[in-house]
């Protein structure tokens, strides 16, 4: 379990990047928190810098779009899913569970 940030620091429509061995992007999509691999599965770009629309994040570099719930890309140029991670909110703090990486579709 790693700490992302305080709930108050991630308003709706915002994202943050947790650096580490594998960087993780955490999003607040209309009040729901999601965590996925930060690096686009297509080429080197940070998805936390992408454009968030509903449950989709668009890669800031080539506009590949990923579903935050599944990590699955919805259009080219990405072909591979990014990993998703369970998010836990406790006492006003957002945590990401990296211990149980969910299966990639």
């Amino acid at each position, binding site marked *: 379990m790693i700490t992302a940030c305080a709930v108050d620091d991630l308003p709706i429509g915002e994202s943050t990047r947790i650096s580490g061995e594998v960087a993780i992007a955490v999003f607040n999509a209309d009040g729901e928190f999601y965590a996925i691999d930060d690096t686009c599965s297509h*080429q*080197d*770009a940070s998805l936390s*810098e*992408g*454009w968030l629309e509903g449950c989709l994040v668009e890669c*800031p570099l080539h*506009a590949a779009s990923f579903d935050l719930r599944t990590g699955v890309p919805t259009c*080219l140029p990405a*072909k591979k899913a990014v990993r998703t991670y369970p998010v836990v909110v406790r006492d006003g703090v957002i945590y990401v569970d990296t211990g149980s990486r969910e299966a990639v579709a």
Partner: protein
Amino acid sequence: MKTVAVVGASLAGLRSVEELRRQGFDGRIVVIGEEPHAPYDRPPLSKAFLAGTLPAADLTLSDDDFDAEWRLGIRADRVDAETASVHLSTGETVRADGLVIATGGRPRTLPGTSNLAGVHTLRTLDDAVALRADLRPGARIVVVGAGWIGAEVASTCRSLGLEVTVVEAAPIPMERALGPTLGSLCADLHADHGVDLRLGVGVASFVDNGTRVTGVVLHDGTHLPADVVVAGIGVEPETGWLHGSGLALDNGVLCDTGCVTSIPSVVAVGDVARYRTPSGRHVRHEHWTNASEQATVAVRNLLAGTTIETYRPSGYVWSDQYGVRLQLAGETTGADEVAVIDGSPDDRRFVAEFRRAGRPVGLLAMNNAKLFGRMRRQLTPA
């Protein structure tokens, strides 16, 4: 419409096939591609692939064949546009009711170098493989042209520890696209990374040892020793096969505002398409995003049999060079004012806004993807 032929199997062709299926076309699709490779991504050819950090297998654009017939390694020699019949280099003829022209472009070559080893252009995977094989330790590289391709090749060569000289005929690189101030910043990027940048001087001739290039002579008399020369001096639209087709050609395939040619069953997409803007100019773009975006509109109009949608380009372009990420959107040429609105060029992290008559028409960002992504959605179409 029963059969659509797509000529050109790179991004624009692949995206057209994808859009045909996405928009409900369930007939026969025949794709004709001159290169033997399945559609692959070209941008990494000057960057990670050239550097050797991205394998060729990772360049593949799609794992889906969209239930199309992929005729690869075959050239379309000519076309009868009225009947959408495509004559192939194999002697076969593909009869179709609809035609998508997506043949892209061919890089301009340096005069007098056609038989010289060591002189390269960079467009295809095979080009990149050949160039990479020449980037041996200690090789001295001369890049002609300081545009996007030239800058990215120079950057990659420097990352490989090679000595690089960039020759650019204009006094400021990228000035037409970026203006003098930000063009000069591009020059600084070269200089910061140890590139010998020769501005405002053209190439006069080449020196060789009978088979291989050994040097470049500039108009000011300078002799630059060279083991490898890379030309990044632009692209010509690939329209030779369309002569006599009945289609209007002028620096590309002339199209209306929706990428439809003078024949409604023929559309053109990508680098080869010279479409009419709502203001009446004909323009052609040589960028990845344009090839992808145009396919959506062109296919919609092809399937409708008439132009029901106007193409509105996002003008999105990116370049990775010298460890910085450059991103452009909208129209940056012809701006009368450029203002840095976030960050600072000195810090290599900023967003600049290009304005015409006070109105924002374009953006350039360096290492500032998040803000750029927000701001580009607020640009009003020019």
